[in-house]
């Protein structure tokens, strides 16, 4: 599974992109985030404020309960500030 981070999510984790093989209990974005929180302090800090997180699955904005699998590209980021 390709996972990308942008904005302060990226800054806190310290990397912009990684290929992950999460365990079977990771079925949607919420459970992915829960699992990532245990991977280090940077992840815990990045995902601390769940209400401020935004998600895209396969480059489309998606809700946190979107079902994901190994073939998906998942992006987790702070609110977008374009324009």
């Amino acid at each position, binding site marked *: 599974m390709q996972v990308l981070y942008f904005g302060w999510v990226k800054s806190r984790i310290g990397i912009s992109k990684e290929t992950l093989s999460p365990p079977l209990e990771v079925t949607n974005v919420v459970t992915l985030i829960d699992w990532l929180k245990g991977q280090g302090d940077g992840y815990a800090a990045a995902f601390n404020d769940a209400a401020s997180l935004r998600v895209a699955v396969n480059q489309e*904005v998606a809700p946190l309960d979107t079902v994901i699998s190994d073939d998906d590209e998942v992006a987790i980021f702070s609110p977008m500030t374009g324009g």
Partner: protein
Amino acid sequence: MIRVQTEDFDIGAEITRIGADNTEIGGLASFVGLVRDYAGDEKISAMTLEHYPGMTEKELFKLETEARERWDLQEVLIVHRYGRLKPGDRIVLVVTASAHRKASLESCQFLIDWLKTKAPFWKLEDRESGAKWVDSREQDTVAADKWV
């Protein structure tokens, strides 16, 4: 048409190109967003825009399509820069063209309102106190929701 690029753009050339050879256009509206040199009380020395390659182009194309569905437009242009910019630098250009002014003016405002909250860009400011990601603003969400 949409473009995502690091290079600057020439406002006059872009607007003139859109108007050229189309005498059905009666109104051309445009908006240019620029890097300011302060945020709140703090000086800003630079702003770095990052984006989500792949998704950005898709989202901008969706915005253009949505504008063309809502208004009768002859032309739409969105140019959005990324990378490291200085105060005074241009960030974004939106140009819309229509037979009558209402469609171009409204759609230009619509596009910039939606770009603020729907285009996958993030802004990192170099402030005196250190680097800071620009927060989304409540009033930007309100402005974007006005068009729903």
